[in-house]
């Protein structure tokens, strides 16, 4: 439903023709003739601008060098506030990007039915962070995608009462293509990591920060100072141009005390991510134990509690009541079962019935 399709085609740059023709061409190429769509394009600054009349169509074609990236959205999904001049007046926790690698859109949260989306990331605490910082929450629930980034040691320049000072810092060193971190578009190479789930990383080693991130990987909230400060969220009090250039006022905001930051985490927000451990009850029915042989016969008895037949007969008791997380856990469990070549059985996805906290396979 939300998959993207790519079409590449050429237009005469100097004779682009009418918008109407272009619109028809697009619909034809994409075989979506029966849909109302909104066409937009990316300008030189990377901002999404609409194409809806001859003028801006002409402008778009002439500014393309050499490719014009055209974005097509269904009319009813279009969030006009996304477009250029009407710039981003986002509020706290406003941004949820779609799990959509190719169309990089930042629609409002109320854009569609929540079921259709699986949140993968969000920018949070915009109101309390200095605007040069960004706090990004990566959701990994039920997502098969790897987090997909690397961190390294480095130095950053801080403003202290004693003037500029070079201090060691932790930076994002690499993004794995197709990984969760990359697909959100909210993190980039050379962004400095300031906090992990509300804990400052200053004074911690690379290995410590690595361990903290991995320990929080199910619900990772990292606060970064983006290397590219151009795409920062600008608060409504500030004016900005269409290119989103922002003033870099790093200085005064740097040492946000942890306690101050933590006040703004709702307790349930911190705890709602609580991972649910899976408990498989193996003893609900008397298990058949293979007849035990004496040692001299050299045939060893064993109980293979993990064999699928047992597993399938067992009930899965999930400790956590959150439906979404249960889902995630089951997915994980299923995937681990499926990848187990010892078990040739294929589990149809539809074969799962959900009944409260107990899920019967």
């Amino acid at each position, binding site marked *: 439903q939300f998959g993207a399709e790519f079409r590449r085609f050429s237009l005469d740059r100097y004779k682009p023709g009418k918008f109407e023709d272009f619109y028809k061409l697009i619909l034809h190429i994409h075989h979506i003739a029966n849909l109302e769509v909104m066409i937009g394009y990316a300008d030189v600054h990377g901002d999404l601008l609409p194409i809806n009349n001859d003028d801006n169509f002409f402008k778009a074609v002439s500014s393309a060098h050499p490719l014009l990236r055209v974005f097509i959205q269904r009319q009813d999904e279009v969030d006009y506030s996304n477009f250029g001049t009407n710039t981003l007046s986002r509020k706290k926790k406003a941004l949820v990007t779609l799990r959509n690698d190719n169309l990089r859109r930042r629609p409002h949260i109320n854009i569609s039915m929540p079921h259709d989306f699986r949140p993968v990331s969000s920018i949070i605490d915009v109101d309390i962070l200095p605007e040069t910082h960004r706090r990004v929450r990566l959701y990994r629930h039920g997502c098969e995608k790897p987090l*997909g980034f690397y961190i390294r040691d480095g130095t950053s320049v801080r403003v202290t009462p004693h003037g500029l000072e070079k201090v060691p810092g932790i930076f994002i*060193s690499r993004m794995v293509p197709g990984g969760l971190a990359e697909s959100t578009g909210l993190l980039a190479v050379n962004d400095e990591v300031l906090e992990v789930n509300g804990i400052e990383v200053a004074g911690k*080693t690379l290995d410590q920060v690595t361990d*903290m991130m991995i320990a929080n990987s199910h619900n990772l909230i990292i606060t970064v100072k983006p290397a590219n400060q151009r795409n920062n969220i600008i608060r409504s009090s500030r004016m900005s141009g269409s290119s989103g250039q922002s003033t870099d006022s790093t200085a005064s905001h740097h040492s946000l005390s942890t306690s101050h930051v933590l006040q703004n985490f709702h307790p349930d927000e911190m705890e709602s991510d609580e991972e649910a451990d899976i408990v498989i*009850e193996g003893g609900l029915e008397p298990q058949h134990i293979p007849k035990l042989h004496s040692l001299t016969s050299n045939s060893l008895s064993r109980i293979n509690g993990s064999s699928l037949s047992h597993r399938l007969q067992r009930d899965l008791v999930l400790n956590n009541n959150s439906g979404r997380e249960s889902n995630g856990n089951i997915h994980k469990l299923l995937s681990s079962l499926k990848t187990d070549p010892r078990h040739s059985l294929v589990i149809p996805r539809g074969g799962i019935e959900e009944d409260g906290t107990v899920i019967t396979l």
Partner: protein
Amino acid sequence: MRRFLRPGHDPVRERLKRDLFQFNKTVEHGFPHQPSALGYSPFLRLMAIGTRSGAIKLYGAPGVEFMGLHEENNTVMQIHFIPDQCQLVTLLDDNSLHLWSLKQHGGASELREEHRFTLKGPPGSPPSATQVTAVLPHSSREVLYLGTESGNIFVVELPSFRVLEDRTITPEAVLQRIPEDNCNRRSCELVEALREHPKNPDQILIGYSRALIVLWDLQNNKAIHHFLGSQQLENLYWQRDGSKFISCHYDGSYTQWLVSSDNRQSEPLENTVPYGPFPCKAISKIYWQTTKNGLPYIIFQGGMPRASYGDRHSISVIHGSQQTAFDFTSRVIDFFIIFSSDPAAEFDDPSALVVLAEEELVVIDLKSAGWPAVHPPYLASLHCSAITCSHHVSNIPLKLWERIISAGSKQNIHYSSMPWPIDGGTNIAPDPPQRDLLLTGHEDGTVRFWDASGVCLHLLYKLSTVRVFLTDADPNDNMNTLGEDEWPPLRKVGTFDPYSDDPRLGIQKIYLCKYSGYLAVAGTAGQVLVMELNDEDAEHVVDHAEADLLQDQEGYRWKGHEKLKTRDGPVRFEAGFQPFVLVQCQPPAVVTSLALHSEWKLVAFGTSHGFGLFDHQQKRLVFVKCTLHPSDQLALEGPLSRVKSLKKSLRQSFRRIRRSRVSSRKRRGAGGNASEVQEANAKFDQEALQEMELAPVQRKIEARSAEDSFTGFVRTLYFADTFLRDSSRHCPSLWAGTNGGTVYAFCLRVPPAERRMDEPVRAEQAKEIQLMHRAPVVGILVLDGRSTPLPEPLEVAHDLSKSPDMQGSHQLLVVSEEQFKVFTLPKVSSKLKLKLTALEGCRVRKVTVANFGSCKTDDYSENDLAVLTNLGDIQIISLPFLKLQIRYPCIRKEDVSGIASCVFTKYGQGFYLISPSEFERFSLSTKWLVEPRCIVDMPEVTSNNHVHKSGTENAARKS
């Protein structure tokens, strides 16, 4: 969970915490790493050892020990006690001199540095002008004579270290008074030795490197005698009556000289090359000891024939027709002789030879026939074979203790019965509160049992598992088997032997039941041995069982080492722990966890492939469980052996060298091998280092997944009698935790004692818990209805513990590397947790339940978790509420082997390796503290201390 991190505000609890917890590093056990100097005071009967890191350690009677550290951390080159004083002087390799004193403070003696001093020459003089080579503390206790590289002998006052310039003995002054044509300025370069006349403190013997020896009159500043040898001088030694002295030389010879008043230049009385006629190595130090029966003891270091025995570290003792060259396992740092220090005694009558080698201390009894070694009560070489694991058992019942000592004493019959000769000072520490055993597993397949109750870590008994297996080692391939007429008369002494014959023999896990005397030991090649203590020698067949942890899964091939071959037929075992059953894991991967339940007679073991349960009463495998993720190729291939391949290849090359050494006794000139290997190794190391530098320091951030490598690695096994199925019936259970964050629980049915042999033990899986954070499970524990950890097997039966509460509901504590989590039983629903990694970025490395008693009241004690993190911090976490109590930095986080070696005791103490040969002991408890507390009193100084000279040991030695 953050609320648990907030410091508690309960003042009552805060006060209680102060009464319970206290962090102290109390004593270093074992043998000092890289010793570099040795000193002895016959007056105090104390020995001092200096190390390359600037530490100085004093030892006397067992329990008497002191430690000091030079701030500079420079190598200690020489140690000299000031005659008849509680003081000593050390010379470091930066040419600084340090004066240390033993002073009484608060009822116990302490070692403190008093002064430091560096000799300064006139401006513009080369550093060699003041480079100290020989130190002589004069018996007047007022001055030090410092021989230098330039040939000058400076005199400094004590304790101020003020240079008495007018008393400097310059080479020019010496030469002026020697009417000799063949002596020139160069003859007086570099002072090798300074020796005070044993009877006349106004005369000192000066030995210059180029074989000029001068007897100098300090009062009149003139040479009384001079002696000119033909070979480069190494050292000097006076005979007790001062009529003769002996010099030893670079060419492996020693010379006796007569000091008589009539002739001014003496010819040598006798010149001997003890291991000639072929070229010999230098004799670097020599003693001449007189005895009542007239035959002297001549004891010297080195002098071996250069070509065939040049690589030996030897000290020879010659007494009449008896001659033995003690052959040490590592380089000799220095040695001294303990002899009669009574100034009135006419003869030296030496009693013991004390040798500090690089890796061990060896003491030879010179009074008993055959010169046997003396078993040292301290300074044990923990690393005679590399330590691979350790296990601590607190509060050993007396019966077991005595049986272990008795088994050990049968192994020590070749030791001398002489009481420990270095017996200065008085141990005033209270008796150890209980009998504790520290068991160390070693690479060569041995387990050593140490008395860890007090300050002296003392070897009680050594167990070898090698006998069960057939190894490549040829039993006749022994360097001791020399024929009767062999020359030189080498005799190997010492126990240091780092060359393991087969790395698969290495011990990885040990579990001792102190009530039953059952011991389980598991090794590198998947071998699990169950043993029983037997007070007699016995010959029996070891039963053998295989546990196929892969359960016949197709398509997997183990690429690691093979299992060890076993000996067929009965094997003779000496008294002590004797194996009666061997369980061999297949694939033969290293055993990663082990648990023994002596009451149920069950042993559980785990590897990177799975775990199994063995009934050692019926000698039958109960079940195996494969934990391996099928895509985990690494675990299948046995990468652990691959990681070790460098070490292995090093070991093999060393073994080759050793073999070639053995054979080179006959065919000479195989010595080049060692240096080649060393060169190659150095090159290899360098390449590895470069590779490391090139690799960018970058860490991947990825959640753990079921597909990670080594998720099946079994980290912990635990037996518990608890409520696994329902809350009305409890039953025996076995719990296993894996690297992938999975906990398996098995219900066990153990037949009652009267039918124990008739019915099989049954097991069925009851629970499988997958922790969603998937971090390795490092500890599993069940708390009873009173939230007390379940007692050890047989503890209740021996009336040493209250029966566990089976009325209230039990709780399960799972400790992963990242967090602590309490679950209810039998439902296993999460109740409480404490996150460690997510909040602090550190991970759990070791965790134990420890009992802490209050230092204020005898009747209060509580159980807490003692936790060591990968950053080397120790945290104490309360049970059952998982509140952080206190945190202490303990080990440097870079010290990976220190952290890996750490072992906690049940009463809040712990040990970790600070070097391959030393355990640091620490205490977290206010109540249980084992630390040296001793006193050194000044013995009464005899009035005629000018004659009292024989005792002063001037170990003036160049290194």
